[in-house]
């Protein structure tokens, strides 16, 4: 078990640049007729010069408007997104939970639970032993033998979250998964995040549920157009964010 307060994620001047192509991939015929002219694209600076570090035992809420670079930053921390400049370093393995992520849609939920656990490196007997607990946490007892393609996005996310948190990941990166779960599940998952925090793990949570950030995060980071706008205690950062986005709106923010 690691100590609390040890540096677990270190992001230094990280920038991610996407190329967004205006046209589809050129076919051979087009390449021959248009000649060597390359495809037109716009460079999108999804993340620009962002620096911060996260210590073990922290739960960080990553907030910002749509397209502000939150998800991109998360996949860069997971090692799935190359950086244009800067560096990211992490301690241990990062697990990324995204909406709609499916292991194998043809297989039953039960088989997906097993596949997920085993792919995370859990031994077979342990996966068998903990199977019921994982299924119950996801609240999928009835649906577990159905193929996963028949699941709603909420059900998929619940299963995925339940599997990913069952192995006690060093670093858990959650991309809006909680938003699609129902109220009851959200309550349970927030509780589990708090448990991870107690075990000196790190959770980074991308969310639009500001209430969740207040409730469960020890820190908030606000990104806007790829730039880091604020980093600090949730109440301070949220205040700035709410002002920026046009003032508080009780109906919107009281999401659960």
């Amino acid at each position, binding site marked *: 078990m690691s100590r609390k307060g040890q540096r677990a994620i270190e992001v230094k001047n990280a920038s991610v640049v996407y190329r967004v192509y205006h046209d589809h991939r050129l076919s051979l015929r087009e390449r021959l007729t248009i000649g060597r002219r390359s495809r037109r694209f716009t460079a999108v600076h999804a993340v620009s010069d962002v620096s911060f570090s996260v210590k073990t035992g922290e739960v960080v809420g990553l907030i910002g408007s749509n397209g502000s670079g939150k998800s991109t930053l998360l996949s860069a921390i997971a090692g799935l997104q190359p950086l244009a400049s800067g560096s990211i*370093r992490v301690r241990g393995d990062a697990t990324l939970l995204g909406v709609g992520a499916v292991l194998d849609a043809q297989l039953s939920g039960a088989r997906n639970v097993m596949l997920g656990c085993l*792919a995370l490196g859990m031994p077979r007997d342990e996966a068998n032993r903990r199977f019921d607990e994982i299924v119950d946490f996801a609240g999928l007892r009835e649906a577990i033998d159905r193929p996963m393609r028949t699941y709603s996005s909420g059900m998929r996310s619940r299963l995925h979250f339940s599997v990913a948190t069952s192995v006690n990941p060093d670093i858990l990166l959650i991309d809006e998964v909680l938003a699609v779960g129902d109220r009851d599940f959200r309550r349970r998952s927030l509780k589990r995040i708090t448990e991870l925090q107690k075990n000196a793990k790190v959770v980074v949570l991308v969310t639009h549920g500001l209430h969740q950030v207040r409730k469960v995060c020890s820190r908030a980071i606000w990104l806007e157009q790829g730039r880091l706008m604020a980093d600090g205690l949730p109440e301070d950062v949220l205040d700035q964010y709410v002002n920026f986005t046009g003032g508080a709106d009780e109906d919107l923010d009281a999401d659960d």
Partner: protein
Amino acid sequence: MVNESNRLEAPLADPSRRRSVREDLRRIWNRRDFMLFAAGSDLRTQQMDTVLGNVWHVLNPLLQISVYFIVFGLILGTDRGVGNFLPFLAIGIFGFGYMRRVILGGAKSLYKNRGLIHSISAPRAIFPIAVMLTEAAAFGFPFMVMLVVAVVTGESVSLRWLILLPVFVLQSMFAVGMGFIAARITFYFRDFENILEFLFRMAFYFSGVLFLVDKFVRNPTARQIVDLNPLLDYISLYRWAVMDIPVGSRLVLSAIGWAIVAPVAGYLWFQRRERDYGRE
């Protein structure tokens, strides 16, 4: 719980770094339960939507040899020089089909498992390996058909049958190695899947699946080259075991050589780009 990175001592490291081969192999070994389980699941779903289900695993190979037997044995008469054409054909078709499926499956494996690859930090080599295990398990059915056909048509059970298993292991090693290579190429160049299909179709007719190469290739230099064709090597060894069709020592060495070089070189080449495979 498998502790892959001793957390207290684990240093801060670039999450997209290329891991050392040693570390990667250890992580692959830790996922052995995953690979076996994935293979079992795949086998189960392959025929899930059909009425006959697993019967197809036996029916398919039977129907396949019937077609080839009628076309090449009865109509075209390519069976010259082969005493017992039916088991000869069965071994050729199934032995070839196994390699084809492992390599094509390997080519598709990164794309097929992108859901897992995008969310879980697991070594990517487990996917082509899982394909090989799936196909190896599925090969059990045609393997039985092959032996039954051989016995029914007059081949006798012999001690040489014992060599079948080691040959199968060598063949699997070769195939998974090529699967790694196919996976890396297909990841960057999806068209390769189609090209590969074509290459196999061509190789099917040139690798002595349907005819005894000895009767067609008489030039000694050409003969030496033919012996080095891995696709044919394993099939020839099966035929030697079941039908006592002689093979030369060069062919045996070639079969062993490919089974070592292909997986080592294939894995190393595949692993060099490991960190790319999670990207869109």
